[in-house]
């Protein structure tokens, strides 16, 4: 069977020199200076694409990679410079919905105009008129000028006209980004319906998930060349993990890309796009310095990164609940995003018994049936006295001497052993210095003045911090340093400090956690965001049900169906694993101090953040440390009070 689309050795040329000259004066001047037609730019280079009837192809690639140019060449808008394009069938282009709409005319008139732009006859349009209006759900607005329509309404109308017939080839260029969720759903349904009816689809989107959902083949273009083609999972994964993926929230992406790819000199290079680095990057930008950020992961945000799954902001690296008593820090964070009223009140599950945390009167009354604080205190004290431990020799003795037998056995012992992977009697006492007991009915885990979770997720905050700052993802520091040696003034290093020095004094140790995230059908799995599993009957230490961080509601306040949970496991840290918590024992602390001595000799490097300073930091402490550095280094001033 012949292919429905054959693109062979296609090159498309733009004449950069001419592009911007559109008046005679410039033309004459440039002509005289012989500056004309110098630069030519190949938007596509020797591209091949063979599509069979009924296939659906996704085109992916960064901005300016040539995706839209290829679609335009297939549609016939652009002519090949070299090579051929053969299309055997009728094309319905949806490169921009409603491109043919006239603002002054009514929807009714526009339907006919838009239809004829797509090459349909008047008669045909009259026959399908009702169908179009019905799908677009605009029956009541037919006679108002389209300039009064919202962009969503226009998109609805445009989609409805464009998909009225089942075309042989449907071309879709990032058009479904507008419109509400309901409309997008119906669009997707309609597209699926068309696909099952034998329509061939060419689909361009930056939304990799939707590409995976809709397409059975993917073509990856970069700089006008085909980098990869094949099945969606392979190509999309390669795309997401591509080296030097430039990520930028600013509008001048191309400039940013050039800045990073050519290794142009910046005042500050921030290594690590986590909270510390991103705050510094933002403040440096605001202070008028040039700044760039690199990160070896394929996303920004470091460990605070949240990923939206079915409307739920999933904390990919464990529960992050922002709490602070530092007004300055709280104000700073609230300028970036509104925070919700979430209060962390975890629950502990031991076998089938459930207890409130932290240890408080709710816990004690459930455990012993006591009613007054004095009774609870007496009970605990009697358990401690019974044991008669003098100087605690290990963690078990330490814990027992603080909380007594019942609380220790049900809520501390197994949990701690799961965390550390060792028997409590083999663990040093210093790990637990104190176990706070509360003799009030207060389940609020933190005692800070302010507490909450950013309403749009932490990633939104990180995007805001990094807006206007070029970020290079999938780029390890060692690699960047090798590639662009003299491209930065100062380095803000937020990676592991031992890594910076190539582990020349030895490796610092970490504790790490692993998450197994599941999407479940049920609407309510455990009724609380955080449940600690304090017994040995299950291997995980806790389960996080992410939707309760946002009270089970999406951004518009609707109940979210289904749920996402993450089981948290503690693991022994090995090379190549994500480092989470520093191990603050004597050996590691001593080693860290040696690295600090080395760091003092590095004139143009500032170490910061959790890994850069080998310290367990709460988020507010990270923010505070970053703000202090910004004041010291950049002269940024932050006011505590409004």
């Amino acid at each position: 069977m012949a292919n429905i689309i054959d693109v062979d050795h296609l090159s498309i040329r733009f004449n950069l020199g001419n592009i911007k000259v559109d008046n005679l004066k410039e033309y004459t001047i440039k002509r005289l200076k012989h500056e004309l037609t110098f630069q030519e730019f190949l938007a596509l280079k020797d591209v091949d694409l063979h599509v069979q009837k009924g296939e659906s192809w996704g085109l992916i690639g960064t901005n300016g990679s040539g995706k839209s140019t290829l679609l335009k060449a297939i549609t016939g808008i652009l002519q090949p410079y070299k090579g051929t394009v053969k299309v055997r069938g009728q094309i319905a282009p949806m490169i921009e919905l409603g491109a043919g709409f006239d603002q002054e005319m009514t929807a009714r008139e526009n339907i006919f105009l838009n239809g004829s732009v797509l090459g349909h006859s008047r008669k045909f349009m009259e026959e399908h008129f009702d169908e179009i209006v019905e799908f677009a759900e605009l029956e009541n607005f037919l006679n108002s000028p389209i300039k009064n329509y919202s962009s969503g309404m226009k998109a609805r109308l445009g989609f409805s006209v464009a998909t009225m017939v089942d075309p042989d080839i449907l071309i879709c260029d990032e058009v479904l980004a507008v419109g509400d969720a309901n409309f997008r759903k119906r669009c997707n349904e309609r597209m699926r319906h068309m696909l099952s009816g034998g329509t061939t689809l060419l689909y361009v989107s930056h939304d990799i998930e939707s590409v995976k959902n809709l397409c059975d083949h993917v073509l990856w273009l970069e700089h006008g060349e085909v980098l990869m083609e094949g099945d969606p999972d392979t190509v999309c994964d390669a795309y997401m993990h591509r080296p030097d993926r430039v990520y930028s929230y600013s509008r001048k992406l191309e400039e940013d890309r050039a800045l990073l790819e050519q290794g142009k000199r910046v005042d500050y290079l921030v290594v690590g796009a986590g909270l510390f680095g991103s705050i510094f990057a933002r403040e440096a930008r605001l202070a008028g310095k040039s700044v760039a950020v690199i990160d070896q992961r394929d996303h920004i945000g470091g460990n605070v990164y949240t990923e939206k799954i079915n409307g739920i902001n999933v904390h990919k690296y464990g529960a992050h609940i922002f709490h602070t008593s530092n007004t300055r820090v709280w104000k700073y964070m609230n300028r970036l995003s509104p925070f919700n009223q979430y209060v962390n009140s975890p629950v502990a599950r031991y076998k089938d018994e459930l207890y409130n945390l932290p240890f408080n009167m709710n816990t004690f009354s459930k455990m012993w049936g006591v009613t007054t604080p004095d009774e609870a205190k007496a009970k605990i004290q009697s358990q401690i006295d019974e044991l008669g431990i003098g100087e605690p020799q290990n963690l078990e003795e330490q814990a027992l001497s603080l909380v007594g037998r019942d609380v220790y056995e049900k809520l501390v012992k197994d949990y701690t052993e799961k965390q550390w992977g060792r028997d409590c009697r083999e663990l040093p006492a210093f790990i637990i210095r104190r176990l706070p007991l509360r003799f009030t009915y207060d389940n609020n885990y933190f005692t800070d003045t302010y507490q909450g979770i950013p309403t749009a997720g932490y990633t939104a905050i990180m995007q805001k911090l990094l807006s206007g700052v070029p970020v290079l993802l999938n780029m390890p520091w060692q690699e960047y340093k090798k590639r662009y040696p003299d491209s930065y003034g100062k380095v803000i290093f937020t990676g592991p400090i031992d890594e910076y020095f190539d582990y020349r004094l030895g490796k610092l140790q970490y504790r790490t956690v692993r998450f197994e995230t599941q999407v479940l059908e049920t609407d309510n799995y455990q009724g609380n965001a955080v449940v600690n599993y304090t017994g040995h009957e299950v291997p995980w230490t806790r389960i996080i049900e992410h939707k309760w961080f946002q009270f089970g509601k999406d951004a518009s306040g609707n109940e979210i169906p289904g749920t996402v949970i993450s089981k948290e496991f503690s693991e022994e840290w090995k090379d190549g694993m994500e480092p989470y918590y520093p191990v603050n024992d004597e050996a590691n602390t001593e080693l860290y101090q040696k690295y600090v001595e080395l760091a003092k000799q590095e004139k143009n490097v500032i170490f910061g953040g959790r890994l850069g300073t080998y310290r367990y930091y709460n988020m507010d402490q990270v923010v505070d440390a970053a703000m202090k550095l910004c004041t010291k280094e950049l002269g940024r001033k932050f006011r505590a009070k409004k």
Partner: protein
Amino acid sequence: MNNLEFRLRTFVKYKDLLLELIKRDIKLKYRRSFLGYVWSVLNPLLIMIVLTVVFSSMFKKNIENYPIYLLCGRTLFEFMKTGTMNGLKSVTANAALMKKTYIPKYIFTVAKVSSIFVDTIFSFGAFFIVMIATRTPFHWQLLYLPVILVQLYIFTLGVSFWLAEMNVFFRDIEYIYHAICTAWMYLSALFYPIERLPVALQVFVKVFNPMYYYIFQFRDIALHGRMPGPRLMIGGWIWAFLLLAIGLFMFQKNKNRFVLFL
């Protein structure tokens, strides 16, 4: 499939688009105006009155039936001028559309000139009103009028193609052409007798000003009740097809580069 057949098929496919575009222009022109299409008639009438009042005393002795003399020239020239001025922008104005989907580009130019043409036909209402008001006899030769209009339509289309094509590459064309149009108008003997011009200029106008051929054909049939001479008739066709050929050639030559400059 040969080239011509392909062209024709494409045209047939998009003929409804052409009609929709013409309809759009006409509908939008008078949308929200109280008198609507009446303006197509009323507007030339009012301008004719103004010009007659201003100029008739000046040229009274030389020209009989001045209002018709003026209106013959002005109606045709106005069509040519408005047609080409709008045609000139027809490609650039539809840039957004051309970048989004494939449409034969000449459709936009044809649609623009055609919608102005339709409007001009309305304005002939004004012409006939003045004919009646000034008691000018209706000669049978007026039946020749559609031929002149067809000639002028083809001519205007040709010029528009050429201008539209150039305007894509140099947006200055619009302003230059505006100045040219003004000079052209004064050289077309719209409101003065052509004999007023110096002889050398008269010869120049009679040979090289295409508008001369159309306007004077019209005056022959409307004012003098005689068929135009062969020189005017044939000259009118030659100019029309010459410009259409040039316009189409230039347009076709560069149309594939349009989208790079829009």
